[in-house]
């Protein structure tokens, strides 16, 4: 379910939640983060405004590292998370 994105070369997994509302982006991130190695980066594509707050907040609660936003050529924004645990 990945689409082409820019600036995401580092991402081991791209989760596409474009068009889906909160809290789906965070739920999909939580469901899929276990699929990458510890230390790897996940990109969540989302166009729901709440994701901009909720993904960093989730990372803080779950002790994962929020790396910031990247441009998404597919629309919305790409939120980058490094799996720490």
């Amino acid at each position, binding site marked *: 379910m990945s689409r082409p994105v820019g600036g995401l070369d580092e991402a081991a997994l791209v989760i596409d939640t474009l068009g889906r509302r*909160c*809290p789906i982006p965070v739920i999909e991130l939580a469901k899929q983060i276990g699929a990458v190695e510890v230390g790897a980066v996940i990109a969540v594509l989302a166009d729901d405004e*709440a994701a901009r707050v909720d993904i960093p907040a989730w990372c803080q609660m779950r002790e994962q590292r929020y790396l910031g936003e990247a441009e998404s050529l597919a629309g919305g924004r790409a939120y980058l998370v490094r799996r720490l645990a």
Partner: protein
Amino acid sequence: MGYLDAASAEPLHPAARGALLSALDEGWADPARRYGAGRRNRLRLDAARSAVAGVLGARADELSFTASGTTAVQLGLLGAAAARHRVGSHLVVSAVEHSSVLQAAAAHGGEVTVVPVDRLGRVDPDEFAAALRPDTALACLQSANHEVGTDQPVETVAAACRAADVPLLVDAAQSAGRVPIPAGWSVLIASAHKWGGPPGVGVLVVRKGTRWRSVLPPDEREHGRVPGFENVPAIAAAAAALVARDEVAAAEAARHWALVERIRARVPTLVPDVEVVGDPAHRLPHLVTFSCLYLDGETLVTELDSAGFAVNSGSSCTSSTLQPSHVLAAMGVLTHGNVRVSLPLGVTEAEIDRFLDVLPAVVAKLRTQAGVSDL
């Protein structure tokens, strides 16, 4: 039924009901008229004005009644800013003001500096002071936040505003009638339905010496600040509620504080993956907000309603606005799964315990339905 949304509307105080019913029969005449019925209604209106001013720490001739808290914000903000147009049009607001303040600030048309808040929802007074400029017409800071309960450093900010010769508008809608109003305001806003008065009564206080100019066509009512025939019965009821409430305010605030403390302490132990937000120590006595990971706040509100509890949510996952709560976003805390509990006068310990009994199963059920129980 457990009503736990006093921050939206407090049930009508019995004293307000009595005052309202008698004033509906006797308080219909135009208080601007000079015949007996008019003069008597003027006395009723002025008595209400003196009573409300007394509780809020204002002078009667500084206080005008409006048709709502929102109208009071609009008239207060735009009028205070308009009176200083020669100074400039720049405004300073906190990021977590009530939407009516943010909207009115935007409507003024000048540049608006939005002062951020920390993770607890509080502005840094130094940062607020640094935002004041020579062309700042007005600064706005709430007494305490309406979504998360965090107190703002109003008196420190007021001192900085005074030093910079900038008037300060304080929106005290969420604290008036519950806790003392912080000192130092130039313009003060309150709303009667949040202290047990009827809806449709707002309060606009403009401190003596603070410049203010109507942005509406001239009208002599309410010291020339609010146009139109006053709703005297509702105003009399609002004053009766505030006076009655004020007599028990300190004791009720202490009781509410302890009940909120119980909610703050127990929710994280009863429900997994919950974040209780706002300042635990410097806060309103009656209000607490927590967010349940992976849930939609509006679904939680609906399910808690079915279980007999009325609460509010700052989450709007399914609402038409699609914008998360600007307060929670400014704090950088979860915006989904949000539940705001706010206690009305006389709420019982048993109701809070029943809420705490019901909540874990409601959250568990919704998480199971959403397929997120194991995340």
